[in-house]
């Protein structure tokens, strides 16, 4: 049975999300389809799934679910016990811990609910550090969910409290969070100011891990602002801080950014090298393949190949990223990959490429992901339709993208889409 048919039989219930994940990760392409004329358009919806295979793999999944639920229940009981013993900060820590468990399994909305309960408790305490910890966690999850204004509000409060408590690490993290919130909304000068503040605070105490992370963010920001030389300097300093620490994940992020910078500078060879090394750092630290970072780096590598006209290799890389995303249940990554595959088909002059955008939209809806993902799909779909003489459809998709970006407060994106809509009318 095809996944698209199987998904139609699965109600959209939160309790069934692990089953949905299992269904997607069990999907395999039929070897005959791979070389058929439908092969180039194969998406997860067109893959095959066997009920027997689901049964076979259900046990381990249920065990993981049970373990997760048990950990959440345990965290809750621990919070109760600590509260009863008068250890309210301990109760907050337990609740925040439960939220972190939820984030780790890709359930940010649930994580947010835990953090909000923790915050209500923390706000009543005299000791403000638990509140700072909770606000930082909330800020982080808000940004992941595309709630940028809300996230900034939490980080702002965390900053005020941590400064009052002389908690320098908290102040640094809150400043970086505020920078990230500004960055996501394309408020470059705001982001610059927050990162610079975080950097000043960190340089004073010589925390190399935090320094490396901030330099990385400054590098990303400088690249977005078009200052490639400054971006290169920040990323080099980030590498210097992080490599000696052997911080694999952070090194991978920095090298990924370096790859994107090299790509923007028209240096495809060094860019590909940076992406490959980034993958090696991920692999070194995270032997389990398929983390979100792994998929994201492969996605950037595929974008590089696409931009340099190496379409066959770009498609191969996207297909590898797709396989990784499917088997590891990285559905957000899948949305990005299908959007890029649609763009690739557009470059090849292949109108049937619209199937990838349709699949990406279906995934966004089925998985209740962050709205920004859906907006990006509609944006790319609009541009695709524009190339194929469908101005009405192109307009409708671009307007939908604009509407979502506007609701998220991403003004730069709203302006970009408006310019495209204007060009469409001209």
């Amino acid at each position, binding site marked *: 049975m095809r996944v698209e048919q199987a998904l139609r039989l699965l109600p959209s219930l939160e309790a069934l999300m692990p089953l949905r994940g299992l269904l997607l990760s069990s999907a395999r392409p039929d070897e*005959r389809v791979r070389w058929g004329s439908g092969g180039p358009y194969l998406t997860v919806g067109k893959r095959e799934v066997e009920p027997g295979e689901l049964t076979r793999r259900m046990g381990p999944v249920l065990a993981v679910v049970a373990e997760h639920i048990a950990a959440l229940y345990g965290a809750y009981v621990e919070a109760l016990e600590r509260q009863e013993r008068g250890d309210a900060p301990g109760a907050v820590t337990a609740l925040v811990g439960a939220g972190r468990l939820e984030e780790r399994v890709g359930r940010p909305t649930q994580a947010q609910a835990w953090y909000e309960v923790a915050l209500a408790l923390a706000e009543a305490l005299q000791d403000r550090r638990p509140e700072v910890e909770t606000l930082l966690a909330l800020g982080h999850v808000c940004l992941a969910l595309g709630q940028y204004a809300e996230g900034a509000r939490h980080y702002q409060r965390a900053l005020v409290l941590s400064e009052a408590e002389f908690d320098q690490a908290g102040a640094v993290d809150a400043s970086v969070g505020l920078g990230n919130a500004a960055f996501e909304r394309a408020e470059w000068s705001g982001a610059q100011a927050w990162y610079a503040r975080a950097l000043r605070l960190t340089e004073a105490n010589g925390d190399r891990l935090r320094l490396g992370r901030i330099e990385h963010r400054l590098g990303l920001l400088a690249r977005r602002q078009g200052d490639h030389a400054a971006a290169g300097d920040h990323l080099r300093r980030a590498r210097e801080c992080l490599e000696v620490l052997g911080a694999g994940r952070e090194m991978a992020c920095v090298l990924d950014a370096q790859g994107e910078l090299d790509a923007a500078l028209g240096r495809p060879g060094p860019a590909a090298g940076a992406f490959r090394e980034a993958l090696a750092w991920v692999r070194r630290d995270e032997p389990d393949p398929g983390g979100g970072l792994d998929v994201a780096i492969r996605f950037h590598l595929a974008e590089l190949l696409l931009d340099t006209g190496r379409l066959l290799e770009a498609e191969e890389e996207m297909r590898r990223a797709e396989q990784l995303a499917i088997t590891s249940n990285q559905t957000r990554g899948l949305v990005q990959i299908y959007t890029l595959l649609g763009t690739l088909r557009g470059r090849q002059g292949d109108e049937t490429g619209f199937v990838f955008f349709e699949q990406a939209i279906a995934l966004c809806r089925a998985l209740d992901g962050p709205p920004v993902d859906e907006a990006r799909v509609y944006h790319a779909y609009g541009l695709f339709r524009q190339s194929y003489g469908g101005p009405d459809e192109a307009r409708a998709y671009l307007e939908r993208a604009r509407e979502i970006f506007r609701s998220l407060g991403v003004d730069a994106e709203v302006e970009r889409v408006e310019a495209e809509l204007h060009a469409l009318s001209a």
Partner: protein
Amino acid sequence: MTRPTQDPPAGPARPSKDAVRVLAVGGEGGAGPLQSLRQWAADLKIDLEWAADLPRATRFLAGGRWDLVLAALGERSDEELTWWVDALRGAPGSPRLIALADRPSMGLALRAEKLGVLDVLALPLEREALANVLGRVRSAATEVALPLPPVEAEAQGHYALVGQSPAMLEVYKLMARVAHSTATVLIQGESGTGKEVVARTIHQHGPAAVGPFVAVNCAAIPENLLESELFGHEKGAFTGAVARKIGRFEQAGGGTLFLDEIADMSLALQAKILRAVQEREIERVGGGESIPVTVRLIAATNRDLQEAIAQGRFREDLYYRLAVVTIQLPRLADRGEDLLLLVAYFARQFGERYGKRIEGLSDRALELLRNHQWVGNVRELRNVIERAAIVSTDATLRTEHLPDELRAEEPGVPERAIRGGGGGLPTLAEAEARHIARVLAHTGGQIGAAADVLGIHRNTLTRKMKEYGL
């Protein structure tokens, strides 16, 4: 000859003539293979370099050309193997991988074969085993270039029909007979045999050539969108119908509508197609108006439609409407010397695209191409040659430019005995494991389908897979 360094040089140190360039990764320390490799390097004529970990190995790979990478696998050997194969793809010099593992399992060895890994050697590393693999690498370096044959002048463009085999000549004759009529044509053939190319050629040589050629891939389009794609829709007909859409039937007016993979269509949609064919009119989704359409219909499938009819998955009346003339396309394996002509055609096509002048193919590469199964027929061959054209550095396509999966099929390399002994012959269990792995690969890992092919119960297959670590 070994230099463990922090910053990799631009290739192996002091490469000597005829030496095999080897990058060893990890394994430093008392029990690691590096110590032995260092001792054997001069004797086995290898230029050895060492990278302490994966990131450093990646820098070495980007910085120079290597013949071999020796990677010690850890506990997650399967995943590590996949990672390495991916990391080496496209690396300068197309290095081959030798995986080193403590007590390699049968599953690992089979997986390595499937991925085109040169060999899996057990730790502690034995000198003879390594010497044997190096011998294979050296013998592969003696390839002779053969000139590519000229391809007919009319075989030009993106959709050319290339081939002179008797099987294709029969196809050409039938095409010539039907092209000038307006008869509906059903093209049957395995995946990648060129059904769309045949359909386009019929269109170009027939009365519908003045009109457009519109192709719809029924397998590619999600079931819920196919109807509106074919017949169009009115604005607001359903969620997402943001504007009126003209369907492919209308777009193909006065020309040819090519329905590819027609067997993938639902029975409900088949009924609507039948109506369009019979009555020559359609209705847009959400519209009440009947719209006349004049199109020549060509359909294609890689499935056995008679069997689909027997199973109730395809309408018999539609079949007879479509199969007024049936053209059966041959498999690439049945087209003899067409393979070489196709290689020449694609090499020229992709050579032009990637700015390279490709004039020859090595004898060993040709042998590999001839021996390959070509499940994906011409489409698979086209992919292989495009990839080879991308990675080639001179005018000859050689084995190093072919995908690992093909290189693993090199003749003269006997099927490796996994556990050794028996004079290199596999045991019965090894042969069974290998066959099961092959069938599983063929069915895309689907256990039910594999059990059907093997003629055993799926529980038995599951048990054997567990037993063999597949």
